[in-house]
């Protein structure tokens, strides 16, 4: 996985962009735990998704694109990269179904 950590506009390093080894599929989103709000704009030519996981991060990306972005919560900013990588591994994991 290719990782790019970005400095956010509040002065932290909490925005982590990761390029997965393969494009994201819609069913991959089911493997992210703790999602409170899931938005998928499936009608768009490039379907945008946004998963909000309170206490951890906001995950955004585009279905069929390997790049995802984690905006990690202030409360866990020290673990931003760790949390993002852990969730990215889940996203890219081989489906068991």
């Amino acid at each position, binding site marked *: 996985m290719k990782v790019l950590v970005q400095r956010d506009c509040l002065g932290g390093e909490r*925005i982590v962009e990761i390029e997965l080894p393969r494009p994201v599929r819609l069913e991959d989103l089911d493997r992210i735990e703790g999602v409170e709000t899931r*938005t998928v704009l499936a009608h*768009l030519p490039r379907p945008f998704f946004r998963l909000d996981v309170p206490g951890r991060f906001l995950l*955004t990306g585009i279905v069929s694109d390997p790049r995802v972005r984690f905006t990690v919560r*202030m409360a866990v900013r020290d673990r931003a990269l760790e949390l993002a990588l852990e969730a990215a591994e889940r996203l890219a994991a081989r489906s068991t179904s």
Partner: protein
Amino acid sequence: MSVDERAIVEAVGGLPLVGNEEGLIPAFGLYLTRHYADYYNHVSYAYLHAAHQEGPEAVAKARAALIEAGHVCAFNTFGGIMLSQEWEAVVGPMLSGRDDWVPGIVSVINALGWGRWRLEGLTPGEELRVRVDNSYESTGYLETHGTSKVGSVCFLATGGVAGIMNLIYHGDILARPALTPDYYAELFAGTGRFVAEEVACRAAGAERCEVVARRA
């Protein structure tokens, strides 16, 4: 141009732009604020009026500073939006060339509640003319102070229009640059940059607000 503003406004309007449990609104790869427009107006116009008590030099500095706030906003907010996944997903498929980025970002602005922006004219690389029918700045000024005796008052919009041109035609937002302080200085302080002027303002008696950006 192939940009469908209605589709963009609907799509952006479908995004849950609400605060999280930390009081932040992460969207477009940056943080949005739900700001009281009246509060921003109050602070801006108190500053402007105080400058008028001091004389022309203070007025010039105040107006420049208030427009500069618009430049900073445009650079970070419009620039951040144009680099975001939301942009790629919603606006990206409608863009067939650099010139389409202008109506693209104007459409997104129209989803943010700043007033109704309309493209009156675009000469690529040379001039952008934007009409704003109900800018929150002129509306706020009229409600609080009545007709302006201090000239045009839509400073954030003025800086914003210059910012659009600087991001798209003076810089190259299409190349996905990092939005760093150095890049800001290059776009907004260097030679060949765009500057904007509000040539008509509702607060000063015009029928609508109109901002024109041209190279300095």
